[in-house]
């Protein structure tokens, strides 16, 4: 069960959120009487707003009340703008006042604020739709009252600064109910006639009610529609009219509007002189630049010393020719060296020596042949002599030296038997030291070898 109960804080915060989410309560315009006013020494204002039947607690914090141009007091009727919210600590709803004006002019202010808000929303105050002010106008139209300080201030200022401009004053009412219609007509007229390149809309200072024509919507819209730039100079520095917001340029005073509308002739002349001077200066500078550029180019190394281009090639060619000749000579020299080396090698081949060697060989062979042959010959000779010696030693003729002789018949046959012989045969009797030719006279046969006579038979020649 206890879960269903809220804390007071939660409830209060909930209620506060509800207040803050309500669009009607976030911006409230209220007309009321002040009571219980207390200006806290820290700057905040606390008071009650009431009417015949009801009251509401209100606070205006320091940051807001500083802009007030009057001192609120009890019993004063005021118009306030603010937001309703909850002061949690006290569980109290109250009005947090942002703006406050005394009632009476209050209605005008509301209208002013509402128109301002509308036109702003429409974009009429946008800087982008503002026309540029002509710097050197030829004709200026002044829309203001025929008499009064404003028109005098404007004309004298223009004539002092820029006397070459045409000035036309378009007389108009600047206060009262009809003022807005005249102002609108004049502005339209000037636009139709295209009789000016700048319009000054001016009026001297006054109360908000006196300046009210310049807060009228039709004036504001006419200003916005103008194809000629409009400078407003209305009231004093602190006065901001709707016309000021819509105009192409707002001046704080009529005199200031005149100053903004035209340049000073002295300044213009000075400016022209400066520009003309710059013209000369710049052209000379450009010429100088170009000259310098040209000089820089024509004095560049390659351009200034064109022979250098050739010189390098000359050197290159010289080097190449050098290399060509060296290489060619070297080729010839190397071939010559190789050739000479071969020739030398041929020449070191000693053919004569070879011939001599061969000759020596031949001679050796010849000698060997002779020697060998001689040895052979000697061998044969020795063999022969050995046999010859032996033969001589064995010669049977030596036996005959002891007195023997050998008889040979006429046929040179050794006579070994008497029977080989008949008397009368010739015999050769070989003795040791010669032969005897003999004739057989008689034959006497003997027995055998014993030497006995055989039958004593004797044959005679």
């Amino acid at each position: 069960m206890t879960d269903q109960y809220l804390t007071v804080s939660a409830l209060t915060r909930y209620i506060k959120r509800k207040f803050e989410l309500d669009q009607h309560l976030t911006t409230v315009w209220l007309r009321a009487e002040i009571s219980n006013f207390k200006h806290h020494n820290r700057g905040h204002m606390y008071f009650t707003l009431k009417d015949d039947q009801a009251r509401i607690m209100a606070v205006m914090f320091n940051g807001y009340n500083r802009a007030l141009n009057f001192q609120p007091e009890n019993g004063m009727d005021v118009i306030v703008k603010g937001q309703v919210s909850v002061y949690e600590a006290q569980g109290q709803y109250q009005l947090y006042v942002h703006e406050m004006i005394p009632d009476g002019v209050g209605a005008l202010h509301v209208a002013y604020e509402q128109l301002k808000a509308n036109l702003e929303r429409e974009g009429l105050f946008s800087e982008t739709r503002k026309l540029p002010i002509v710097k050197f106008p030829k004709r200026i139209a002044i829309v203001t009252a025929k008499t009064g300080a404003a028109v005098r201030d404007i004309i004298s200022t223009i004539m002092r600064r820029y006397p070459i401009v045409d000035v036309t004053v378009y007389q108009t009412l600047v206060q009262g109910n009809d003022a807005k219609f005249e102002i609108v007509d004049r502005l339209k007229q000037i636009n139709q006639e295209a009789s000016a390149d700048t319009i000054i809309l001016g009026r001297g200072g006054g109360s908000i009610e006196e300046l009210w024509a310049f807060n009228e919507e039709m004036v504001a819209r006419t200003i916005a529609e103008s194809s000629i730039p409009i400078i407003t100079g209305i009231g004093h520095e602190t006065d901001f009219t709707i016309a000021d917001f819509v105009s192409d340029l707002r001046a704080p005073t009529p005199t200031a509007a005149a100053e903004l509308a035209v340049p000073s002739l002295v300044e213009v002349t000075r400016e022209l002189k400066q520009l003309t001077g710059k013209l000369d200066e710049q052209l000379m500078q450009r010429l100088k630049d170009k000259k310098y550029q040209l000089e820089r180019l024509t004095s560049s190394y390659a351009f200034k010393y064109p022979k250098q281009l050739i010189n390098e090639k000359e050197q290159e060619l010289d080097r190449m020719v050098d290399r060509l000749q060296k290489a060619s000579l070297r080729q010839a020299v190397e071939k010559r060296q190789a050739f000479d080396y071969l020739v030398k090698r041929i020449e070191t081949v000693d053919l004569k020596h070879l011939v001599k060697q061969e000759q020596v060989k031949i001679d050796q062979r010849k000698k060997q042949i002779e020697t060998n042959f001689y040895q052979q010959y000697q061998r044969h000779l020795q063999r022969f002599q050995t046999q010859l010696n032996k033969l001589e030693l064995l010669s049977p003729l030596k036996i005959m030296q002891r007195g023997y002789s050998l008889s040979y018949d006429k046929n040179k046959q050794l006579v070994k038997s008497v029977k080989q012989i008949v008397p009368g045969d010739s015999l050769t009797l070989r003795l040791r030291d010669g032969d005897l030719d003999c004739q057989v006279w008689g034959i006497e046969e003997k027995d055998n070898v014993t030497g006995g006579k055989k039958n004593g038979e004797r044959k005679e020649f």
Partner: protein
Amino acid sequence: MAKEKSFDDVMSELENIVEKLEKADIPLEEAVDYYQKGIELSKWCDERLKHVEDKVVSLIDENNNKVPLDDEEV
């Protein structure tokens, strides 16, 4: 130069030309052309400024009549 041109336009033009001439890389011929044009414009402006006439301040009254404003008034 056409008379219709405003002093304002011509001064702007002149200023424009000076700005262009101030650029270092502007071609020579263009620079000369600009210069020539600039001289012309400055002459025109000069003449314009010298030619200060006494301007009459006129008043368009309630009846839309154009009347010269009394000097005393101004």
